[in-house]
């Protein structure tokens, strides 16, 4: 047991674990991850029936929550604590101790110097007092001893070192806390519509492991207006979206006063600790479908998914399960600026809505919704349906401008294009632990700078009397990196030269 502990906390093991962590993180970028999109993973496994399940078993699609990845970083941090705890204790002890004992022979130190003072100069004892002052001024901790001064500097380097690793530990801990209490959800809101922060309102919702519904702050949001600015000056980027602004009506809680606020990309809205981000947008044509019996079977906005960000040509899928006598389905495009070329095919030529048109195919039959299996709302399953309108059959496709209606074949009903609105895709995030993560990562950064750039040095000055002259000897020792030790010797030498009447050395030897 003791053997394993010693092994685990050795520097070499820590280094190996660190490098292993780098290697282990890589597969997460090579294979699709469930956390980013479970459906992509399932498709990937279906496409690779042999290797897919094996990789799945190995956790390649959940790398960052897999047993082996967690094992590596947990071992690494155990190793770190095991390594740093004794070092921290040791350093605490060092901090309370005086600088190290003066070595007998300073000449053996990597940097050494000797000066002989004029006979009218200070006595050895006075010189040592001066030397102590000088060393103190350049940040050394000093101790005046019999015949020498001991000095040490850069204790804070080790503190930085320990704090850096401690900071990383804090980051991991707070990320873990975040995993318990945070929640995130997505919601699409059409202009004029609203949203209340409760579970049923979300389109999708990912809670932390310790989430409970009472924790949801009871605020409400309404999308008043969504405004897009397009580039109309540039020739090469004509029509590129330059700015999105969602104007929201925010109700912080039941019965509280409503106020107006905006959300932009890179500029979220914060309400009750929940951050609301603008992550998507598009057009929502307002469509009314009357069924074969003359009843309104659907009326309202349909979320159209942008297919081409240059022209905002968008996919429209409308399922009308309430239609009688048969269910109806529509699939096609919303073209914000429709233009029909010589080939008779309508395309969108601008992302803004100058000439919006709906180009649809229609189906009747069974939408396949009744058996309870969840369906993708953006995919129309036409297996149980019969095509009514399409460019490829005698009825032709449906083309509707704003305000147009179309009577479906065989008395199946009518469809009308009443107008359009914009919608926004919002991400809502609540993560109280991010402040902890931010604090500890900043701490780690500051501590890293300290641990890399503060230099740990020891210095000793000895003074003796020889033939009526005071002879000063001094030596410098680096603990850790030796960079710049020479320069420090020169600096120390210069300050000695300033303080005392030094006899210039008569030999060409410069030490």
């Amino acid at each position: 047991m003791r053997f394993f502990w010693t092994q685990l906390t050795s520097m070499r093991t820590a280094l190996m674990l660190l490098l292993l962590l780098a290697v282990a993180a890589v597969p997460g970028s090579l294979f699709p991850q469930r956390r980013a999109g479970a459906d992509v993973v399932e498709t990937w496994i279906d496409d690779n029936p042999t290797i897919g399940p094996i990789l799945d078993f190995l956790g390649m699609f959940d790398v960052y929550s897999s047993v082996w990845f967690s094992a590596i970083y947990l071992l690494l941090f155990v190793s770190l604590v095991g390594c740093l705890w004794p070092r921290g204790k040791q350093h605490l002890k060092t901090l309370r101790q005086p600088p190290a004992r003066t070595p007998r022979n300073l000449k053996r130190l990597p940097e050494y110097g000797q000066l002989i003072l004029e006979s009218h100069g200070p006595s050895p004892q006075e010189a040592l007092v001066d030397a102590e002052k000088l060393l103190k001024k350049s940040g050394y901790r000093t101790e005046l001893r019999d015949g020498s001064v001991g000095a040490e500097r850069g204790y804070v380097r080790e503190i930085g070192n320990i704090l850096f690793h401690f900071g990383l530990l804090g980051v991991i801990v707070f990320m873990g806390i975040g995993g318990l209490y945070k929640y995130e959800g997505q919601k699409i809101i059409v202009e004029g519509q609203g949203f209340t922060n409760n579970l049923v309102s979300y389109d999708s919702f990912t809670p932390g492991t310790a989430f409970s519904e009472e924790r949801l702050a009871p605020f409400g949001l309404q999308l008043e207006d969504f405004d897009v600015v397009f580039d109309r000056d540039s020739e090469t980027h004509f029509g590129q979206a330059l700015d999105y602004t969602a104007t929201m009506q925010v109700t912080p809680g039941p019965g509280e006063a409503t106020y107006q606020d905006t959300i932009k990309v890179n500029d979220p809205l914060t309400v009750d600790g929940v951050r609301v981000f603008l992550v998507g947008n598009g057009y929502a044509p307002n469509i009314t479908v009357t069924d074969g019996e003359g009843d309104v079977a659907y009326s309202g906005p349909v979320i159209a998914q942008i297919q081409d960000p240059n022209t905002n040509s968008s996919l429209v899928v409308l399922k009308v399960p309430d239609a009688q006598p048969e269910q109806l389905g529509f699939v096609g495009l919303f073209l914000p600026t429709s233009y029909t070329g010589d080939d008779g095919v309508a395309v969108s030529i601008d992302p803004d809505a100058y000439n919006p048109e709906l180009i649809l195919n229609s189906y009747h039959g069974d939408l396949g919704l009744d058996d309870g299996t969840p369906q993708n709302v953006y995919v129309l399953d036409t297996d149980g349906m019969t095509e009514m309108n399409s460019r490829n059959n005698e009825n032709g496709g449906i083309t509707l401008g704003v305000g147009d209606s179309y009577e479906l074949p065989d008395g199946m009903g009518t469809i009308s294009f009443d107008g359009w609105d914009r919608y926004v895709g919002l991400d809502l995030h609540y993560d109280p632990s991010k402040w902890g993560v931010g604090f500890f990562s900043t701490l780690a950064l500051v501590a890293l700078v300290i641990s890399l750039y503060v230099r740990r040095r020891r210095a000793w000055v000895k003074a003796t009397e020889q033939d009526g002259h005071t002879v000063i000897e001094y030596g410098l020792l680096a603990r850790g990196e030796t960079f710049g030790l020479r320069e420090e010797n020169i600096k120390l030498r210069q300050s000695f030269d300033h303080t005392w009447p030094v006899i210039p050395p008569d030999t060409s030897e410069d030490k």
Partner: protein
Amino acid sequence: MTPINETLAQYSELFMLIAALIYLVSFFFFSWDMASASRSIRKLENELETVKTKELVGASGPSTTEPVERKQLVSDDMEYTDSIKRPAANIGVAIMIVAALAHAFAVVARAVAASRAPWGNLYEFMTSGALVITVVYLLFLLRKDLRFVGTFVTGVVLLMMMGATIGFPTPVGNVQPALQSWWLITHVSVAVVAMGIFALTFSMSVLQLFKQRAEKQGPINGFMRLVPSSSALENWSYRLNAVAFVMWTFTLIAGAIWAEQAWGRYWNWDAKEVWTFVIWVIYAGYLHARATRGWTGTRSAWLNITGFLAIVFNYTIVNLYFPSLHSYAGF
């Protein structure tokens, strides 16, 4: 939003090409310096020998025929010494300064034309990155004799400029809302400077491995004699990497803050984030290796090389082929 200044944008593109051509000339001079190293050294040693012979003749002592000792030609602290003349390398540096001026004009003109930081797409990122590498290198040259990596630096800069103009030419334009953030300036600029330093230390580590082999095999000849000792290269790449590592850590943190502001998640294990983390871990390992027995020297050089290869991978393969939230920007 200020409209794009198309005239200035065209000048920018023209000067980018001009700069690339001047870099090419500089690259040739550095290569020439490398190739002619043996000859300049021989010339120097012949001169020294003549001087020594003269001295010996002048002296009354017994004439010996001992060969000229193999003098160390470069300082291990990479200070400039006047031991050997390297005219080709000096011309290379001078031409590189001219190229950097044209290059800087091109980058600044593009920034002014678009009224924003000139790293909003891969073309701009690569051309600005190349400028940073050049400037970092030239700044180091002020204090330290790093002429021995001149061929490498000009080569990398040329490759980046060619890659940008041939592979990812992009006309000047405004950036999409996702990139309109103050963090674009800090996060990306610090990352670029860090990468510039990592590129420099990468070349030093490669040379360290060659030099080490040469040191083991006995007398060193040719260009390798103009390269500082392997331990000096190791020390200096460690010092520089310590600076770059702090910057890389900042890049990670700044990126996380920006991600929180833009997407709500400060860390999402996005392909780009994974690789930035992997690179961070490799360099963290490199810094630790120095304090670990048995990991200095060759192994630490290999770690540094691996780190830089991961950076190159991150900015080429990951950018182009990995699905990532960062892909909209081309970086």
